[in-house]
């Protein structure tokens, strides 16, 4: 009995070595056509996708400086084909105003690119929206008519990932 079990187990082990061979299509003299396709493909492991959205550091504008400030996000990502990554920049203050500490006075600023859902390709390396400089920007055109103080606002960068359709 022991010898029989050992013989059976040995046969099974030998069979496992040849598994790949059994899984292939055989081409013989009788095969027509005498060719067969074998598919080689990648298997997507878990957590293979990644993205990094780099948002600008805090921007400090000297009083009286009306230069345009670049506020573009930069995206580096590697996603599955058909996946979508969008970045939207918004200001909770819809009046486009920098506010002082007690919010009693405001300094108007001129933005570009706010509220637009910028979509990035599955493979993006340091890409900025639409590959156009200063797509998202701010500037303060005038500092007149308000008390001199620190005025500020927060821009929110929202990232949305959409998986590819099944």
């Amino acid at each position: 009995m022991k010898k029989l079990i050992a013989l059976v187990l040995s046969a099974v082990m030998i069979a496992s070595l040849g598994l790949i061979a059994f899984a292939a299509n055989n081409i013989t003299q009788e095969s027509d056509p005498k060719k067969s396709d074998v598919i080689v493909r990648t298997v997507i492991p878990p957590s293979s996708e990644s993205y990094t959205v780099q948002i600008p550091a805090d921007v400090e504008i000297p009083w009286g400086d009306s230069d345009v400030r670049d506020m573009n996000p930069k995206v580096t990502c590697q996603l599955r084909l058909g996946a979508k990554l969008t970045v939207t920049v918004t200001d909770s203050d819809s009046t486009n105003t920098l506010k002082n500490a007690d919010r009693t006075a405001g300094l108007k600023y001129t933005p570009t690119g706010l509220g637009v859902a910028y979509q990035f390709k599955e493979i993006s390396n340091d890409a900025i929206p639409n590959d156009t400089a200063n797509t998202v920007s701010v500037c303060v055109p005038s500092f007149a008519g308000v008390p001199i103080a620190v005025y500020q606002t927060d821009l929110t960068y929202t990232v949305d990932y959409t998986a590819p359709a099944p």
Partner: protein
Amino acid sequence: MKKVISVVLAVLMISAICVPVFAAASPTDITTETSGTATVKVDESSLDAAEWYVVQIPADKDIAWGTESVDMNYKVACQLAEGKKLTVTVTGSDANTMKDENGGEDTIAYTPTGFDAKDFDAATGVGESATEVTSWVDADPAVKLTIPAANWEGIAVSVYKTTLTYNVALGTV
């Protein structure tokens, strides 16, 4: 013992045949944060040198003999730090009288209006700087000298003058 080991190893090797069945692909979970903020603010270190103010006062004024009202008002534009104010006060020389420039003893008294201290807010008028003012604020009540007609009578005809001093001070609210 050898037999036990051999059986265990055999079972393990048979199990390896089944591994590909368990390694099927699954959806990827992205767990990174989905939003962040960037702050846009005025550079605090640049504020110290940003204050300016201009008090525009009238030029020296010659008045005709018998004039009963003389407008001597001023106007202000300023941009000061939050919490500050500008105060302007006007004073007249010689107790609000005009003295004879030629040394005579007669004088002409006038009644001033608008001399009292007047406060102006940190943001008064409009302008990018002291040299780029586009909108002024006139003092209210306006600075005026009122000379009753009677004060022109019974005095020698001469040149009488007085000096108005406009005083400006910065302060806190």
